[in-house]
């Protein structure tokens, strides 16, 4: 539906990729790990190796969760656009087809300590 307006009404997104000086945004969420109140936002170069993002800044942020130390990244189940997806840690964000403002999710079956605590 269009915005009701007196003349043609065109908006411009404020979060276009060109505003990030060669970087892009990526969102990552650890499903069922609600100690983290919302998905993490990263601002990274598309040439960055996905594995470097996962083992670097993402793993650092995950530390407060009791499951963080037990993660086996080779057994993690990933979702992209809500569908199962297999990442390649050795390739870049771009080569993995991860676009600007992409939401990645991952699950760690059997490893949901705080969810199962009650």
């Amino acid at each position, binding site marked *: 539906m269009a915005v009701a307006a007196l003349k043609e009404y065109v908006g411009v997104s404020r979060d276009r990729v060109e505003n990030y000086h060669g970087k892009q945004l990526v969102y990552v969420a650890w499903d069922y790990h609600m100690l983290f109140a919302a998905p993490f936002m990263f601002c990274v170069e598309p040439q960055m190796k996905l594995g470097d993002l996962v083992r670097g800044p993402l793993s650092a942020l995950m530390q407060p969760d009791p499951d963080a130390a037990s993660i086996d990244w080779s057994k993690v189940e990933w979702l992209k656009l809500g569908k199962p997806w297999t990442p390649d840690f050795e390739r870049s964000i771009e080569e993995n087809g991860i676009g600007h*403002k992409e939401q990645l999710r991952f699950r760690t079956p059997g490893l949901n300590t705080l969810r199962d605590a009650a």
Partner: protein
Amino acid sequence: MEMKVAKKKLGLKERYRVMTRDLGWEPSYHTKEALYPYVGYEGIKIHDWEKWEDPFRLTMDAYWKYQAEKERKFYAIVDAHAQNNGHLNLTDARYLSALKIFLQAISPGEYAAHKGFARAGREFPGVGTQVACQMQAIDEIRHAQTQIHALSNYNKYYDGFHAFSDQRDRIWYTSVPRSFFDDAMSAGPFEFMVAIGFSFEYVLTNLLFVPFMSGAAYNGDMATVTFGFSAQSDEARHMTLGLECIKFLLEQDPANVPIVQAWFDKWFWRGFRVLGLVSTMMDYMLPKRVMSWREAWNMYGIENGTALFNDLARYGIRPPKGWDDAEKAIDHMSHQFMLGLYQWSFGTSFHSWIPSDDEMAWLSKKYPTTFDKYYRPRWDHIKKLAAAGTPYKNYGLPKLCQTCQLPTVFTEPEDPTLICHREVEYKGERYHFCSDGCQHIFENEPEKYIQAWLPMPQIHQDPIRGDLGAWMDWVNLKDGQDNGDYVGSNDQRNFDAWRGLATSNE
């Protein structure tokens, strides 16, 4: 020659006519369309502006007199509060977090409502409507001023009050109510009235005022209580105006009904999201609780809302679209949001804290089906982290909702253990949402919402470029003073010391 004029006092009805309806005129050298260019494009049809009823029949001269009287009383009490160190009568300085949020997020909303009603008063052709909007515009700016004055006393003693206007513009959580009002003010005059006059002032106002004003009374804050009393009679008038407005729209033309319904759906959900902040205050921030958010929702949401929907059903209006999803969220939202505020407290100009054992017992009593099952384990773990000397901070900046601008902390309506992910692609660009409600609002007017200034993505753009220290300077947040855990804060130390001086002989 001296003219003898008989001083005849006008009757109430006559006086109302002279002071309102008689102020209008028929334009002779401009068309009505040129004078009121914004009254048609939203598709609302009005056949007879004279049918507008002013339930209060208040005239401007009586308005000034009445408000001046109220404000004299208000300032007398606020002065007495300041002179008698009224701030030391608070239950606890943790209460101040609720006030800081109020000043940074809600008082600027009063000012925005002032601008909106001033504009609506200019854009509506009917005299009765113009006068009613003018009075509400003046009410709203008075409310902004009196709130700021009432809370300025606290600024002399406590952190986090000093830069509310910068923070209104720049800090992340204030962008929620700010975008709410900007959305309404950039809509047409009729949508503005349904958004602010009806959905906000009528449907949701009690849910906003009860926690703040009763919360103030329960927690010994006489300054804010006084403001509440002063504003109460205005609020009653605003509620009546909002209801009158929506009935007028619905009675004027059946074609107005679907337009009003769509606005009602939209503004109920937008208002409900703003109330996420309030739920957290009620359940976590008031040291002496008034009632739980769930209890307030039952009383003011369900009971009043159902009566209203029954009343409007005869026009063909049904309950707002997000009503069922709202009900499913009630037992979760305050907990989900407080967990966020705590872990991001390095970026808030107020303090948060881990609930005490007593408070957790209260929460599990008030939320028997959700607190112990979902939220207590998280707080217990956070407590453990704090005890181990590694207090929990989440420096991962959150994903925000493109519509309501809150961090996407909310869960799937059917699964409270899973964050709700919603995504839309529009003109090749991705947009994220916290809920179906916010996604629908975007899809109805995408060109409007793609322009949203989202504070988190903006941190990575010019001029901040991801530098958290530079961001703190820019939002006028003093690290180590205004932000962080209440435990160990200046506010805690000072309040305890001053109260000790006031209540003992040390």
